[in-house]
């Protein structure tokens, strides 16, 4: 590395660092001279796709980000919403896709660590973790290795740090073979009058480094995340960071202890691009300069250069601007928690970032142009390939066989093998654990408030129609929160796409954002934080590259005034089981079509956002007044899978009526029409009357009771058999 540090800075080196010729030209004009090696490193990471959002920024601005309950939208470390009683929920989702392919355990673990820091850096105690995972074809031998490492990594970090992992989602598809997606979400709770921001202020104020020591791990991680993999992807293992969840735990406690005082002016974690991005962003946002002396940075290795320290992505580190008279008070807190604490610089009025090391100035860059002149691209778009129209349908297997195959298929099989490796109850506030309700329910300690949390996206819809898929992801998150009785407040988004330099991928991206924006506006469900991950491609040995399915994962948050009103999937005996929402029997892009006919054809189901809202508001009202005893949204696999999941989750079975006449049975039972809920109520007639008044389509599906699921044919599938089929997939894949 030190030999590399001697290299001459020129356009060739800039290209190696991921800058284009034009971007390098801009660097030269900002600097008015050839930058130093360290300066070039700083420009290259700050202008990487990962840090600068250069391909996505123009479009992200079109998303709605405000509502009366939004306290801080995008732009801070995480989004902040009002949950009542003077409290705020702070949350965000972030990807760690590239590292998780290279080194699944550490990639996933540090993904969890990074998102936790984004949340507690704002003053929140983390109360829940969720994740959205996408893996390749289960038959690909790599998939097993990646699933194993990612699940162990998510659990290894989250369990040790003592934050419950309460929910998530998993899909399998060959498009993720060489590029799995690991999107981690953290939710925290803070007092509204104790929220900490990142804008530095106060010339002369000390800049403090706390947490782990800096090593050579993760150098240029942000740049690595901003390019496609090539055949040497696995050789990039040294760019993956290594996590230490126990230090993270200490860091959470120490920061929260310091935050209870008035010592902090600004605080930010050192995430992607480490010390560089935290220092640049904090000073830049505050409109001040910053002077750092790297001799004072706690170091794990000897002989590190300024370049290495500025670009290291060593984990569990934070940068804090303190009030000058509070340094010793802060130092005592970090001593107590046995964490490094070092004054490494101060704020200035120069507007520059100045990096000193061993008496020499290694970098001096004006902050305003570094931020303002960061590249913004409106890259060319092209329409994506339309899916094949659907062939006329011939059901080859019948309803019962299809159901058995669906509940055992990779995308619908029980995830218990996965979530049983995550501590979901630590902290003692988990009211609904994974699998018990459409959204996880976590109580806010010492209050009656419940948070409803979910992650959602249907990538196969997004590939067929990115705009509709983007809207559907938002609507499904809203629906899952609604199905517990909670009021949906806001979302965080994690936009995972292929290379933006491919016009059809860029087209998918632009369309998906348009769809998301429409749904967020129609549902009053603004975006308050998020993350973009592009260049999710795998290069084959023949030089071609395959993009992942467009995957705009949505993390949704809702609130219950009284957590005791939440409902789950399990039905009591003796209820009418009712379907709310219109059923047209749309099988395009359905799981049934894929699993039973092997086709991925047709348009995804339509989404009527006005109906979505009407149906959801109707359901939520009846949950809160106690009319609805159990509720489940209808999603992948359609109505019959939804009812079966309710039977598997609870004590009562269900006896089904005949399906809607005038429609093919498989279309009724397995169609994936949107905006629908299955609910259990004492009096189905009364519900039908209320629904008619509200303009919500309603029909009876059957009655809860007995053991297992009785189909209209009269055939009963026992709960034991359902559970056995449902639980087979993961152990068979992973424990063989």
């Amino acid at each position, binding site marked *: 590395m030190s030999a590399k540090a001697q290299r001459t800075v020129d356009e060739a080196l800039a290209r190696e660092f991921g800058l284009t010729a034009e971007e390098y030209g801009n660097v030269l004009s900002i600097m008015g001279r050839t930058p130093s090696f360290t300066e070039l490193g700083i420009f290259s990471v700050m202008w990487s796709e990962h840090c600068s959002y250069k391909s996505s920024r123009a479009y992200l601005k079109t998303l709605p980000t405000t509502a009366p309950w939004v306290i801080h939208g995008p732009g801070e470390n995480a989004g902040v919403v009002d949950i009542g009683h003077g409290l705020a929920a702070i949350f965000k989702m972030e990807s760690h896709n590239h590292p998780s392919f290279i080194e699944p355990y550490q990639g996933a673990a540090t993904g969890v660590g990074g998102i936790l820091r984004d949340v507690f850096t704002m003053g929140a105690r983390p109360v829940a973790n969720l994740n959205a995972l996408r893996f390749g074809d289960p038959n690909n031998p790599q998939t097993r290795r990646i699933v194993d490492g990612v699940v*162990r990594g998510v*659990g*290894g970090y989250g*369990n*040790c*740090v*003592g934050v419950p992992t309460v929910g998530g989602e998993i899909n399998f598809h060959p498009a993720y073979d060489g590029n799995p997606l690991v999107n981690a979400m953290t939710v925290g709770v803070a007092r509204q009058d104790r929220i900490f921001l990142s804008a530095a202020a106060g010339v002369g104020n000390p800049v403090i480094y706390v947490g782990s020591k800096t090593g050579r791990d993760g150098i240029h991680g942000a740049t690595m995340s901003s390019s496609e993999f090539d055949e040497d992807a696995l050789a990039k293992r040294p760019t993956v960071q290594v996590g*230490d*969840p*126990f*230090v993270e*735990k200490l860091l959470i406690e120490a920061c929260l202890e310091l935050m209870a005082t008035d010592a902090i002016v600004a605080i930010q974690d050192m995430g992607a691009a480490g010390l560089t991005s935290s220092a640049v962003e904090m000073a830049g946002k505050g409109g001040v300069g910053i002077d750092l002396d790297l001799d004072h940075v706690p170091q794990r290795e000897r002989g590190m250069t300024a370049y290495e320290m500025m670009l290291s992505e060593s984990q569990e580190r934070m940068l804090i601007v303190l009030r000058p008279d509070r340094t010793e008070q802060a130092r005592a807190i970090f001593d107590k928690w046995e964490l490094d604490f070092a004054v490494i610089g101060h704020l200035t009025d120069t507007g520059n970032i100045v990096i000193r090391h061993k008496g020499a100035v290694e970098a001096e860059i004006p902050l305003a142009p570094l931020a303002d002149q960061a590249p913004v691209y409106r890259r060319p778009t092209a329409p994506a390939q339309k899916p094949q129209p659907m062939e006329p349908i011939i059901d080859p297997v019948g309803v019962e066989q299809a159901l058995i195959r669906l509940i055992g298929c990779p995308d619908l099989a029980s995830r*218990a093998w996965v*979530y*049983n*490796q*995550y*501590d*979901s*109850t*630590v902290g*003692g*506030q*988990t*009211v609904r*654990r994974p699998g018990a309700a459409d959204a996880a329910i976590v*109580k806010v*300690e010492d209050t009656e408030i419940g948070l409803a949390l979910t992650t959602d996206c249907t990538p196969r819809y997004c590939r067929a129609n990115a705009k509709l898929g983007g809207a559907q992801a938002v609507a499904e998150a809203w629906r899952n929160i609604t199905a517990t009785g909670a009021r949906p407040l806001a979302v965080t988004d994690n936009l995972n796409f292929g290379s933006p330099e491919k016009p059809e991928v860029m087209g998918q991206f632009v369309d998906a954002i348009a769809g998301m924006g429409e749904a967020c506006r129609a549902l009053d469900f603004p975006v308050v934080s998020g993350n973009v991950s592009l260049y999710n491609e795998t290069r084959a040995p023949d030089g071609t590259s395959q993009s992942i399915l467009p995957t705009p994962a949505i993390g949704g948050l809702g609130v219950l005034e009284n*957590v*005791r009103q939440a409902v789950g999937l399990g039905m009591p005996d003796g209820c009418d089981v009712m379907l709310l929402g219109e059923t047209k029997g749309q099988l395009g892009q359905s799981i049934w079509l894929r699993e039973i006919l092997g086709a991925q054809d047709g348009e995804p189901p339509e989404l009527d956002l006005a109906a979505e809202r009407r149906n959801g508001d109707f359901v939520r009202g009846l949950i809160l007044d106690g009319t609805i005893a159990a509720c489940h949204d209808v999603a992948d696999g359609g109505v019959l899978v939804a009812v079966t999941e309710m039977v598997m989750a609870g004590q009562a079975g269900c006896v089904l009526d005949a399906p809607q006449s005038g429609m093919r049975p498989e279309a009724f039972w397995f169609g994936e029409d949107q905006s629908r809920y299955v609910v259990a109520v004492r009096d189905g007639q009364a519900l039908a009357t209320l629904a008619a008044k509200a303009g919500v389509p309603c029909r009876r599906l059957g009655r809860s009771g007995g053991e297992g699921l009785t189909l209209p044919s009269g055939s009963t599938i026992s709960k034991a058999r359902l559970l056995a089929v449902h639980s087979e997939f993961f152990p068979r894949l992973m*424990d063989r």
Partner: protein
Amino acid sequence: MAIALRGVTGQAPAMVWHRDTALPEGLDLVVLPGGFSYGDYLRCGAMAAHAPIMAAIREFALKGGHILGVCNGFQILTEAQLLPGALLRNAALRFLSQDCWLRVERNDTPFTRHWAKGDVYRTPMAHGDGNYIAEAETIRMLEDTGRVAFRYVAENGRLDAGDPQLNPNGSMNAIAGVFSENLRICGMMPHPEDLVDPLMGGEDGKPLFTGLVEALVG
């Protein structure tokens, strides 16, 4: 754990820092809760067993004090040799977070007095290293002297240590918790404190705490 203790006793427990060297005066009970002490990067509990406060806890034990260790707390108690045996990686080599069923092996102790002998109760477990092991001689001694507190069983009480469905972490004799010789120290892997509120899914773990309150405070 603190929430459960506060809920059941109506009093917030005093928190003791690992670097302290003395316990507060007049304690009824010392609880070593779960967690990942020092990250458990070495054997679970091995570092914590040598924390400065442990000398005072050892002294408290020698004087006949009551101690409950749950999960990492149990691991620490075995590493500190206040309880016999050790906890290995789970047999399946994976972290397990799920409900399990525990059978109460005797009810004449402060920890189990609010159950009947043979009662089966549900409790969450969440650990990677809960596979109880001890030398054959020690196991025999524990069995002969009635020092097994709880065993992993089926909901109906059936015991089969060889069945991973019933004995999820592979513990010898399906042992989930043990007592010290004087029956005043109890260590267990599952988390009864996570099931003391109907809102969280039940109160199955509550008898342990109400029993302790009755026995120790009267």
